[in-house]
């Protein structure tokens, strides 16, 4: 009897010790999500269409667009201190290799000043460093479209596009861009 009781007691004890100590190992729950932060080319891309071939600039006189239908002289945009601060932060991040941070700061700058070509210049540089050459070129082309009349900027953009295309292995495209840069 005593034997039985003590055996039972011991069994109970063991069980309770087991209960107290058994730990269901906790598996930290990891959301099995894809990281879409790199490379951006994995994004659902817009309808794939070849960008229009870069045409040779046709020399010809042009006049400001803003006369018709509401003539108004276009004023150069003043860069706000906020945009300057963001471009600085982005540049520092880019130089130190933190390209994601550079990209974040530049997208913030873009929302504040979406027509500032310098924002697109830095963004294109960043995408080039991220080796996303396709997007880098498109961003640079957007910069070109916003730089009309500014010879210095246009030259820099076409030089950047030349470099992007070279890095992407598009030698003939780079040659076209180089010629374009030389025009300014």
């Amino acid at each position, binding site marked *: 009897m005593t034997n039985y009781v003590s055996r039972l007691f011991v069994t109970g004890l063991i069980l309770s010790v087991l209960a107290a100590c058994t730990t269901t190992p906790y598996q930290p729950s990891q959301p099995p999500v894809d990281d879409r932060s790199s490379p951006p080319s994995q994004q659902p891309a817009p309808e794939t269409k070849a960008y229009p071939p870069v045409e040779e600039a046709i020399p010809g006189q042009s006049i400001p667009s803003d006369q018709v239908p509401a003539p108004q002289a276009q004023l150069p945009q003043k860069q706000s201190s906020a945009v300057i*601060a963001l471009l600085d932060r982005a540049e520092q991040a880019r130089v130190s290799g933190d390209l994601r941070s550079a990209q974040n700061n530049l997208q913030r700058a873009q929302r504040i000043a979406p027509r500032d070509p310098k924002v697109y210049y830095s963004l294109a540089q960043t995408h080039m460093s991220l080796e996303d050459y396709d997007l880098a070129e498109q961003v640079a082309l957007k910069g070109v479209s916003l730089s009309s009349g500014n010879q210095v900027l246009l030259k820099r953009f076409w030089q950047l596009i030349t470099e992007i295309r070279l890095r992407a292995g598009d030698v003939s495209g780079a040659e076209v861009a180089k010629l374009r840069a030389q025009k300014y």
Partner: protein
Amino acid sequence: MAQKKTPAKKRTRSKKTSPRRKKQTGFISRSSLFKIAFTLLVLLGLLTLFLDAQIRSQFEGKRWALPAKVYARPLELYAGAPLSIADLKIELRGLGYQFTSKTTQPGQAAFSSSKAIIDTRGFHFSDGMEPARKLILDFDSQGLAQLRDYQGQDVPLVRLEPVLIGGIYPLNNEDRDLIQLKDAPSMLTEALIAIEDRDFYQHHGISPKGIARAMYANIKAGGFVQGGSTLTQQLIKNFYLTSDRSLVRKLLEIPMALLLELHYDKDEILEAYLNEVYLGQDGSRAIHGFGLGAHYFFAQPLQELKLHQLALLAGLVKGPSYYDPRRHPERAKTRRNLVLKVLFEQGKITQQQYQHAINAGLDVVKKGTLLKEAYPAFLDLVKRQLRRDYRDEDLNSEGLRVYTSLDPIAQSQAETSLKQTISTLQQSYGAKLKPLQGSMVVTDPQTGEVLAVIGDKNTRYKGFNRALDSLRPIGSLVKPAVYLTALEHGKTLASIVDDSSLTMKLPNGQIWKPQNFSRHSHEHVMLIDALAHSYNIATVRLGMEVGLKEVINTLNRLGIKRQLDAYPSLLLGAQGLSPLEVATMYQTIAANGFQTPVRAIRTVTDSQGKALSSYPFQLRQTIDADDVYLIQTAMQEVTHSGTAASIYSTLPNSINTAGKTGTTDDQRDSWFAGFSNNRLAVVWLGLDDNSPLPFTGSGGALRVWKSFMKSQPLESFEAPLPDDIKWLWIDAETGLLSAENCEGVRLLPFISGSEPTEISECMTKPGDTSNPVTRSLDWIKDWFQ
């Protein structure tokens, strides 16, 4: 741990075995008794093991399915920001800021006529911490003129915390905001313990003293007024067990409470309680935990609540429905004051604090003061984009944070414009317009970000989302694509097109005779005017000339991914598209030929703020800069002299806009799509049963658009002038080259080499030999001098 465990086990054993031992002297043999006892013990042990495992896995692992939190864009504050004081107030109200005369803590703002002082709360963004700070904002007529810190130093840029606009909930619809015990105001825990379980820090899970006290109170009162459950038991009940009042549940509750106390310390249990407790119901969404409760009842974070508010929350635990302060304010107040009385009697608060608190109002805000769940149509878009990349269970349980582009200020103004215009139209046209519906999409055309979405005139209605799912024929909104195709195929804005009546035999043998809206046809009109005045017959001729396939190709390049059928009626917009698709299409034109996918999500992070995915700015040039410049010019003609000319009775002339009206057959749909430099808005009005409207695109949708755009900090649309474009004077009748001093002339842009070579009659007058192009340019030069 083993030592701790033993007493619990002993209790279990003695309870179960002793009655049976008595019986063994009768007819059950000793060995059978031991076998039965042994089996029972094993079973009990297993049950204990099972319960224990359950408790531990829940407690140490993922305790709650945490809904994903969806945030609006953070408001950027900087000198020069196009932000008015009224806009700032909209944003701060959405964030639950208290407007006071003097700010003393985060979450408060003080205003004068041109100045604001705000005490921000700070926020941990995925790309860094934005600290809490006190800021001085000076406004002028342009917007935010200066931004300084409280020491008077200029601050270049500050991000306010983003407004929480929604969640993605698990199937049980439980919503909660997790808090840590150290972040809970001490008065909340004091109040909770005082009113629910005053021996909490002394007992081992169950409280005989508490039960005795409750029984005494119940007997004294002659009914059930007080329960004897400890906070631990209440937690077990909420946490692991169903809400039915069965005996089995009650029996399981006690050992589970003991086990819980065995493994975890009081503070861990209390923290779990604070997050688990059920506090109310908002439609299908169950409000759990004090973190969310504070937002739900007071539109403020828990840390910012005052004593009387904390006491109300603690009092609610006993019966969230019975004491619901919105439905039963008197009951809630009595309960709150009881909590305060107990706190005072226990010496936790002073007489002065007590008096002050019991005299305070309930201060509960109206439902919907915060913007959580306020924008179901936008949230729907976000969820669809998220579901492409994430599994449902990750979205509703991992506490993901989703940062979106929604602009609560633009959304609020869009809602006002849509609702007011619909109401005005209903008043003008009477009962038949009672079911008039509307939807709207607003984007920033330069970044492609969606700023606002409305899917129903009842903007908080979580039903059919017209902005995404209502495919209604787009009517003349398709025309820019037709004209753009024509321009790409060698036409110019001055090309003369034939708008005389037309009869076509369709491939199925039917005869089609397109009509102009006015029922009048025109012989010869310039291409730019045919678009500006939305002439149908000219459009069909142009479209058939360039070919339907080419028009479809253009629509695809503008961003329409849907399969489009090559029927001639496509040219007049028989194709149904959603407002969101229309926004995509017009955005490509507004962004100078760069197709930018509409984006509602910026970044997704895990619950700790680590970025999981970002959705960067994407673009691809799909329309040549020269061609897009021409179509932009023609679309500006629409708003200046064409079907949308009424815009300038509302907007100032200094703001250039471009757009297109759309009206479908029998006026079943009223559309307008248009943009300035920084805002693109697409508006649809119509009836769900597809019956005709008593107004056109300009009589309905355009009115919403104008009212909305007027409320926005608009930047004029200025198309960058491509190198190859030149502007020339053209004879408006013939489309031939002319000069500024001739009658009936227009200044129009041409791609170099495409300009007319013939000169108009005016130019061939005897003695006039100068080159018209030179003369055009002379005019421009004069104009600038």
